[in-house]
Structures are given as structure tokens and as C-alpha cells.
């Protein structure tokens, strides 16, 4: 090909890949645009403070669903966080060969398992023995989704901690576990928090694993062993219902949900930025 032709191809490919990048971002603009347009008009103080009204009565809110989501996600964090962080520390610090490889591989594969499958798992493991849908089952399902993410980000962050920090601790006569807990984990803290926030952002938007674990509820929560409302479930129920007022509330709920998710993601980014500055 002539030099001119090669330059034209070069420019054309630059342009095409640029267009691809724009096309990839377009849906984000469209989705967020519609969310803001439809959601803002439906949001008011009642929406955050009141229970859902019965069918046919306009108004009401999703306060119970917001509280329910916080409870279920809180449960998931309580179960998943220690497992994820300890697992990540193991992957980063272990000198064994085979087991860490297996765990790492498994974590990555589990991360790709559809969330609804974890819903079935939580159903068989928690709902069937307890004989009722419960907040606990929902929290367990979400924890299963959270663990692989936290394991892998914690591993990466702990690996970044320089070896000489560990050696300094050991040189002072500290036992290994104190070095891990008091030196290595604090040094990797910002990065680990990032991973945790990312996983929280992910699970707070999950609907499928809650369908037959947390089930949903139109009232305030009545204990961890009872069905509980969650914001994504409420949005789903409203979206597929045939009432205009519920559609309006679905948009408002989606706007609130996405705000929560983005805040968590932003917090994650901020934590990493601080780490970069501290270096």
C-alpha cells in the first residue's frame, strides 16, 4: 500500500474507534437523561418518609424499601466482609502454590456466576430450612455475590504493600499476625475500602437474588427472619404493574437507587485518590 493510503487507513481507524467509544457511552447519557427527566418530578418528601399506598390511592412512598435495602445490604456486608478480606489476605500472603491458585480462579469464576443462581442457593440453604422468606436469606445471597469481589481487590491491594514494611515489623519482633493486622492491612486500607465500596455498589442494585429470598414487603420490616422490602424489588414490582402512578414511583425509585449506587462508586474512587496523594 502507498504511504498515503496507509496514512488514510491510520486516520480512518482512529476515527472509527473514536466513534465506537462514543457509541458505547451514548446509552449512559440516554438512561441517565430519562431517569432525571422522569424521576425528579416524582420525587418529593413523602416519597422518602411514607409507606406505599394501596392500589388506586395516589401518593405514598418507598421509605420501607429504602430502610429494607440498607438492612439487607448491611447483613451482606456483615457476612461477606470478613470472609472477603481474610480470603484476600490469604491469596496475597500465602507461600503455598496450588491452593491460592485454585481459590483465585474460583473467585473469578464465582464472580461471573449469574446472581439469580445465588438466589436459588440462598433459597435452598436458608429459606427452605427456615420455612419462610427472610431478610437473612437476602443478606446471605448478596454476601455470596460480594465475597469474590472483595477477595480479589483485597489481594491486589495487599500485594501492593512493599515488602520492607513487613520486614520492618518482623525486625521489631512482632509476630506475623500482628504484622498482617497492624501494618499490612492499614497500609492497604484505602484500596481495600475501594473494593468494598465497589462491591456494595454492585449488591445494592441487585434484584434477581432477592426475588425469592427477601421477597419484598409493603410494610416496615418486622425482624430479620421475616420477608423484607428492598428498593430494587420495589422498582421491579412498580415497573411491571399496570398503574401510571406506580410507573412514576418506579422512575423515582430508580433515580434514588442510582444515586445511592453512584455515591458508593464515587466514595470508592475518592478513597483511591487519597491513597495516590498520600504516596
Amino acid at each position: 500500500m502507498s504511504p498515503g493510503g496507509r496514512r488514510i487507513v491510520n486516520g480512518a481507524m482512529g476515527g472509527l474507534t473514536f466513534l465506537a467509544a462514543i457509541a458505547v457511552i451514548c446509552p449512559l447519557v440516554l438512561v441517565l437523561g430519562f431517569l432525571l427527566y422522569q424521576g425528579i418530578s416524582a420525587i418529593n418528601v413523602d416519597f422518602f418518609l411514607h409507606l406505599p399506598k394501596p392500589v388506586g390511592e395516589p401518593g405514598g412512598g418507598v421509605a420501607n424499601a429504602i430502610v429494607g435495602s440498607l438492612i439487607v445490604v448491611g447483613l451482606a456486608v456483615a457476612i461477606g466482609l470478613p470472609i472477603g478480606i481474610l480470603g484476600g489476605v490469604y491469596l496475597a500472603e500465602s507461600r503455598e502454590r496450588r491452593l491460592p491458585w485454585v481459590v483465585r480462579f474460583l473467585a473469578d469464576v464465582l464472580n461471573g456466576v449469574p446472581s439469580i443462581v445465588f438466589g436459588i442457593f440462598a433459597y435452598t440453604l436458608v429459606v427452605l430450612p427456615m420455612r419462610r422468606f427472610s431478610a437473612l436469606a437476602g443478606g446471605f445471597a448478596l454476601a455470596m455475590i460480594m465475597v469474590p469481589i472483595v477477595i480479589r481487590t483485597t489481594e491486589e491491594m495487599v500485594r501492593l504493600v512493599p515488602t520492607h514494611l513487613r520486614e520492618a515489623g518482623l525486625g521489631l519482633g512482632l509476630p506475623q499476625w500482628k504484622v498482617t493486622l497492624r501494618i499490612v492491612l492499614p497500609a492497604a486500607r484505602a484500596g481495600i475500602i475501594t473494593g468494598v465500596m465497589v462491591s456494595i455498589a454492585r449488591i445494592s442494585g441487585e434484584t434477581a437474588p432477592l426475588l425469592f429470598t427477601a421477597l419484598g414487603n409493603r410494610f416496615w420490616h418486622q425482624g430479620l427472619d421475616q420477608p423484607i422490602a428492598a428498593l430494587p424489588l420495589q422498582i421491579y414490582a412498580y415497573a411491571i404493574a399496570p398503574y401510571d402512578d406506580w410507573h412514576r414511583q418506579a422512575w423515582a425509585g430508580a433515580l434514588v437507587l442510582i444515586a445511592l449506587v453512584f455515591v458508593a462508586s464515587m466514595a470508592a474512587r475518592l478513597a483511591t485518590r487519597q491513597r495516590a496523594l498520600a504516596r
Partner: protein
Amino acid sequence: MSPASSPSAEAAERLALDVRPSALGRGRSGDRIFDGLVKATVWMVLLLAAGLVCSLAWESRTAIAAFGWRFLVTSTWDPVAGSFGALPFIYGTLVSSLVALVIAAPLSLGAAIYLADLAPLWIRPPIAFLIEMLAAVPSVVYGLWGIFVLVPWLRQSVQPLLGRALGFLPLFQGPPYGVGMLAAGLILAIMVVPYITSVSREVLLAVPNSQREAALGLGATRWEATRIAVLRYGRSGLIGAILLGLGRALGETMAVTMVIGNRPQIAASLFAPGYTMASVIANEFTEATSDLYVAALVEIGLLLLVVTVVVNALARLLVWSVGGPVKGGLA
């Protein structure tokens, strides 16, 4: 749990032995406890993973016993008669995911190449950030948008147009419902694009710069360097990235359930409503009345699990082959 460099650890232990034997004793038992805790956690993760497969297999045993392999190739889904076959759902899952990949793969690879190699440096972080945001949008929000924006648009503008222009193909025949395979494929495409893009970008960034420099040094243009030295080097990783996207698409539940029409049928047209494995579980699990019905749904879940695990395992190995296991982590 051992220190990264053992000589210094041994030195530390000897030192501690000389100076404070009691402190050493405490540390040792602390080490044992912490070690045990970590090991227990790791085994718990392994057990949970094994339990996942076992419990699904156990709960679906009656359906497996009743239908055997026929479950995969029959297309009756009749809860009243207690006769179950998963073929329409398998078909729906495969077709919707395929439509998604046909749309998403070229766009994602293009965007990843742009971000990793061709874009001006200042523009890369903001675009990468927006793509991350795209991945953070919950499925149910995409579904909501799909029901009220995408589906009406498809019904009123896109499908009549496609029907007129390409109506001679069986793919684009039939009445424009809006909901159906096309809507599901489109929404899935939007949802898997960020995954494929960010993993491919990681793969491309993991290609050593010496590759690019060698090609540029031989007189290649930027694009030629990318094509010859980078894409070829990272090929297996890019295939892995697309497979990861496929894994996501196969298991995606809420958004698809909300726009695919939920009708267990096998139709050639993309305009026709369909049903996927994940959506039938989502829709019918709580209302399944007989044990066999529940077992059949759990068996579909088991099938979904096996397929996604195979796809993901393959994808991870391919991605790891370029960047190594640590860098090619989550996306």
C-alpha cells in the same frame, strides 16, 4: 501465612528469642490462631462453592430423574400437566446473548483499542470513568428504561423500518410488538459493553510496550502497530474478554425479563417474544406450586450455573494468558 521473605523472619524470631521469650510465645500462639482463622475462611469459600453445585443438583433431583436428558431437547412447558422441557428457554438465552454479542463485541473492542492505544492521553480517564459508570447501573434500572423508552421506540420506529428494509429475512418478520428478542438483545448489548471494554482494555494495556515500539521502529503507523503488534499479541485475551461478556449476557436476569415478552416459544423472528433461562426462574419460582415444578426451575438454574462456569473458566484462562492472574482480575 508466611512473610514474603523468610530469612528476615527467621532473624526476627531469633532476635525475639534472645530478648523477650515470653512475647515470642504469645506471638506464636497468636500466629496459630490467625493462621487457623484464615485457613478456615478459605476452606469455607471452597465449601460454599462446592455447596452451590451440590445443593442445586440435590434440589433438582426429582426433575432430573423424571425427564433425564429429554429436559434439554423438549419444548413443552406445562406446569398443569407436570411436563417440563427447557428448550425454549435455552434457545431464548442463546439467541438473545448472540444478538447482544454481535452488537457489543465490535463496539467494545473498538472502544478498548481507542482507550488503550489511539486516544489522546487526556481523554482516556474521563471515558474510562463513564464506562465504569455504565457498568454500575443496576439491571433493574436498565429494565425500567427498556420498558418505557426502548420498547416503544422499537415498536414505533425501528421494527417497522427493519421490516420494510429487511423483511425478506425470516429474522425481521412478524408484527412489531416492541418486546421480544430484539429488545432483549439490545438491552443485553448495552449491559455487556462495559465489561468487554474494560477487560479488553486491561488486556491491551498488559501487552508489553516493546511490542509497539518494535512495530513503530520498523515504520508502522499507529494503527498498524496496534494491528500487528498489539492485537495479535493480545488475541487470546480479547477472545477471553468477549467470552466474559457472553457469560454476563447468559445469566442476566432482570432487564431481560422486563423486555423479552416472557413467552416460551421458539420463533425464527427477532421481533417475536421469547423467554430465557434466567427470566423463567425469576418469574415463576415463587409461584411454582408442585415439587416437580420447583425442581424443574432449579434444574434450569443448575444448567445456567454449569454453562456460565464453563464460559467464565475458559474466559479467565484466556485473559490470564496475556496479563497474568493478578492483573486480569475482576472487571
